């Protein structure tokens, strides 16, 4: 008899809580930002195609469908971490060969070498190159995402990818140097040899 009571009590509780959960799932349903949009927000929007997709949005869609998150060299490790955080995935190393710390560059056209072929204009994913046929072209620096896509099509190789120069307006405060600060290093870094710490 008692076993029946126990079972029925548990069953009753299960039904009640199930109903509450089901009710609240419908009642308090939150329309979230579609995951693709959220991923797209994180991607750097260089539209460089280095991930193998024609732009950031397609890659975002394909990440949402389970593609690896480590194929975005312009975003670097920071983007991977942000994606991993968003999607609750493991942080991966950047795929393929890439610089440790990619320097942000923008395209510069060596203007007296430009022959005005418009090939780079067609290649630019964000319309950041100005010019017309047989006229010299130039890059709108503020719009350039540094995607590299204009370099290859140039028939006379007159496009350089150069890092943006620092001047008094875009100058940035440096983080306090870690030199005097090694007491803060976490346990994982404690294995580093003494030479490195002293240097």
């Amino acid at each position: 008899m008692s076993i029946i009571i126990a079972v029925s009590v548990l069953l009753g509780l299960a039904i009640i809580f199930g109903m509450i959960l089901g009710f609240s799932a419908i009642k308090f349903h939150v329309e979230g930002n579609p995951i693709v949009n959220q991923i797209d927000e994180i991607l750097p929007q260089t539209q460089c195609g280095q991930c193998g997709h024609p732009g950031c949005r397609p890659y975002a869609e394909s990440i949402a469908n389970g593609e690896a998150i480590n194929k975005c060299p312009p975003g670097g490790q920071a983007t991977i971490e942000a994606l991993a955080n968003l999607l609750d995935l493991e942080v991966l190393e950047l795929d393929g060969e890439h610089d440790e710390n990619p320097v942000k560059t923008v395209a510069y056209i060596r203007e007296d070498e430009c022959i005005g072929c418009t090939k780079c204009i067609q290649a630019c994913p964000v319309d950041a190159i100005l010019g017309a046929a047989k006229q010299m072209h130039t890059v709108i620096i503020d719009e350039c995402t540094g995607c590299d896509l204009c370099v290859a099509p140039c028939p006379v190789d007159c496009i350089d990818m150069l890092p943006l120069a620092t001047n008094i307006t875009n100058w940035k405060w440096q983080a306090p140097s870690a030199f005097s600060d090694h007491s803060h290093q976490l346990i994982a870094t404690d294995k580093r040899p003494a030479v490195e710490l002293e240097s």
Partner: protein
Amino acid sequence: MAFIKITSPHVQRPTKTADIMRLVIIATLPGLIAMTFFFGWGTLVNVVLASATALLCETACIKLRRRPVLFYLKDNSALLTAILLALALPPFAPWWVTVTGVFVAIVIAKHIYGGLGQNPFNPAMVGYALLLVSFPVEMTRWTAPFNLSENTWNILSFSDTLTIIFSSASDTNQVSALLDAYTGATPLDTLKHRNGLTTEEVWQTSTVMSNVGAWYAVSLCYFVGGIFLIYRKIFTWHTPIALLATLAIISAIFFAIDPDSYADPLVHLTTGATMLGAFFIATDPVTSATSNRGKIVFAAGIALLIYVIRTWGNYPDAMAFAVMIMNLSAPFIDQYTQPRSYGHKRAKQPMLKGSDTK
């Protein structure tokens, strides 16, 4: 000529971490003297032993972590931890108890977590709690105050104290004789294990309770040290006052309800480790809450836990456990007690998980 380029501010107050630690150590001196005066050389021996062990452990850890040894030793933090632990230990605790406690405090509670500033728990209290759980007999064998035997200053001689502390299994008889003569229960212990007596009866019958004055004196000394530190702005009044006030209020309420089965507020405030805890343990900045409001919540929590554990728990005193439990909740308290910044209508609410993806 080259001028150095560094960012502002270009002047700094000369008070440094080491100075703060040293001041706290100085503030413990009245308590230490009182302990020695009332309970014998044991505490002093413990302090010396613990300090030596702490410095050794600290040096070893810094060496292992390949850091500049002197730079870190100079901050006095290991010394302070050791002294606080030694003050909390029973005066006749065997040497290996002290050494184990200090080792746990410095190596496990501090350096394993990343060194000074990174430890989530108060190192001294971790050491103490571990000892209390592991060696209950040694840890509850408190020395009787000197006026228990005669009303003169009669404490165990220095050599005898050393014998007790450094005894090995071979001379058990001699040691146990000494121990029998000089140890007893603490007032809190007595009140806890009252064998059905009312509080009033305990007060009247127990010899321990008649000598409660020694405890009062020690607590007073800690109190004085604490006031000194507040005066020197080492910490704010929030933590100790909130702790003592909460404890007083709770105990007063229960004492008012049922004076027969609950101890009065004075006993709670002045016996055991209450004063030591309120001024020296709970105020440890590393492991407590940050803001002033947070500190009040933190200290009130400790007081509440002390009372609960003392009254209904298994242990007569509860400072270590209460502090450690509140240490755990300090980050949580910080989240909810952000102060209202200038120009804001209300204090900021903690960040929710959902909002940080925005």
